[in-house]
């Protein structure tokens, strides 16, 4: 507001305190981003000709669009799987005693305590041709030839879901914990069964957590370079690897930059769809 009133507005305090962080962001986030954008506006690798050629190339190339599409789809599949598996865990967490709660939290957090590389290799061991699953199924006589699990979309989704699960479960646990337990009882005493209570009360009230969890999981899943490349192998190409190939192997920096910008915009679009959904759904979310 223009003229300062007699007493200072509390919101005017402390902007100076944010300066170091702002500077940090400017130097290490905004500046590289601008540089990336500048780079993407060149039609040749030497950086002599300006133009939108890289973008045009990407958007008219079926292969590139295919990679973008399968990456966004991968994110959606991983997010959906995490939500379907994570919600019951979070729901259970709110309904068990303190001892079991500790155990559940430990199980949920466990993946965060080991490196992504280690966890991914564990999945390779599990999913491989001679892996645990195939060995078990074969020894039980259920299958004759090993199933192809590794280097498939299925394998990538499973591995990513396990790796990103805490990002979904933790916000859900928080959101469900904020719901007054009496609301369950109130719904029940008004004659509603458990399904109606779940869909009319619990789910809408947990939407802030669902949105947060989905956003985090989605963003993490589509950018998970290591897991995507190791479990997906050479046959499956997703955006991070595509980007890496263009920049490192082919040294086509302007095209890599354009891919980055397009990928960034695509992710932002998906995330803003999530947030808009959340706002439209009349969730109260303490807003």
């Amino acid at each position, binding site marked *: 507001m223009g003229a300062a009133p007699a007493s200072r507005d509390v919101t005017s305090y402390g902007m100076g305190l944010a300066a170091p962080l702002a500077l940090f962001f400017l130097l290490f986030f905004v500046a590289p981003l601008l540089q990336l954008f500048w780079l993407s506006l060149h039609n040749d690798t030497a950086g002599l000709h300006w133009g939108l050629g890289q973008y045009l190339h990407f958007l008219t190339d079926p292969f590139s669009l295919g990679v973008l599409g399968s990456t966004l789809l991968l994110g959606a599949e991983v997010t959906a799987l995490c939500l379907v598996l994570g919600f019951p865990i979070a729901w259970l967490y709110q309904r068990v005693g303190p001892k079991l709660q500790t155990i559940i939290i430990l199980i949920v957090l466990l993946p965060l305590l080991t490196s992504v590389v280690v966890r991914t290799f564990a999945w390779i061991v599990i999913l491989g041709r001679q892996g645990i699953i195939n060995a078990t199924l074969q020894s039980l006589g259920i299958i004759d030839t090993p199933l192809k699990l590794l280097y498939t979309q299925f394998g990538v989704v499973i591995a990513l879901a396990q790796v990103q699960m805490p990002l979904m479960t933790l916000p859900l646990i928080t959101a469900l914990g904020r719901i007054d337990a009496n609301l369950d009882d109130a719904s029940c*005493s008004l004659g509603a069964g458990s399904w109606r209570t779940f869909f009319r009360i619990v789910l809408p009230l947990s939407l802030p957590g669902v949105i947060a969890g989905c956003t985090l999981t989605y963003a993490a899943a589509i950018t998970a370079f290591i897991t995507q490349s190791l479990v997906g192998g050479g046959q499956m190409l997703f955006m991070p690897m595509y980007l890496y190939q263009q920049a490192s192997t082919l040294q086509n920096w302007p095209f890599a930059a354009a891919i980055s910008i397009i990928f960034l915009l695509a992710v932002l679009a998906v995330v803003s769809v999530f947030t808009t959904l959340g706002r439209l759904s009349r969730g109260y979310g303490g807003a």
Partner: protein
Amino acid sequence: MAETQGGRSLVVDAVTHRYPSGALAVENINLDIKGGEIIALLGPSGCGKTTLLRIIAGFIAQTQGRIIIGDDIVDTLPPNRRAVGIVFQNYALFPHLSISENVAYGLAARGVDKAARQREAQRLLELVQLPAMGERLPRQLSGGQQQRVALARALAIKPSILLLDEPFAALDKNLRLDMQIEVKRLQRVSGITTLIVTHDQEEALSMADRVAVLSHGKLEQFGTPSDVYDRPQTLFVNTFVGSTNRMPGVVVSADRTAAKVRLDAGAEIIARPAGGALSEGGRVTVCIRPEHLQFVGDETGFAGVVGMSLPLGATVVHEVTTADGSGVKVSQARIGETRALENGAAVRLAPLAPSLANAFPATL
């Protein structure tokens, strides 16, 4: 189940509940409540009131005993099939649903169509005098209004029993009085058997047809407000309901209806043996309410010295120290210009009538 079931009876039959943690929350409670009665469950914090309410509603399965509503033993029915309406202490309105959606929630669960449900919600909101609030969200209402919505929501399913858990605790004094009158009016109109949990004795005495006093999970007394106030059966009831002076003494002689007690304060008075028979020579605690003591001019009663006098509007309360060093309170109606008692004045005190002093065996 949508038809009116107002006025069904409720029997709590020898109900005991022990939480998994081992806490014995209620112990052998028996209540026989007629259809259409208002009952108050009165007791100090932690005595098991909420537990008992949740057992009746079906949220907790009691360890022992039965709950009978009308002619049905409901122990195996889940809460959504008991037709019991409950208003929670914190109202528990659904924060993401509008006021009319909140009120109509139970009807939707019963499959009532949308138009009928909205009409009914509007009718109920008019009943609780909030006709224009239907579109708002619960957080846009004051505490008192939210509480009325919670009441309307519970009434919407036409419950056969209405349970209210400390419904007025969060309201200020004036609003509380309004709401008490409101609930009583609604209850009279609908005839729904109603159970109100409270630790406010005035609320219990003013609203209820009968009061159940609980202490440490046990039922101390179940009777009309005047029974509980004037003829308490236990020392706990006498001290918890209303204020009282506890005066120690020894039984001189006793029969079933009257006991002569020699007070340590130095007088022989006649008291009512309230907690069963008393034995001669046994120590007792005599309870006399401040308003049942009077200053006497003659040599009857016991002596004391006036300490502080507190003018409390319609009454004046005097603190008097007796010969044995204990203090008693005496309250006097302020009729015209009450004679001011000097600090340190010597006075004599006696109960207004023998039936107004209750003698209980002393617990050591």
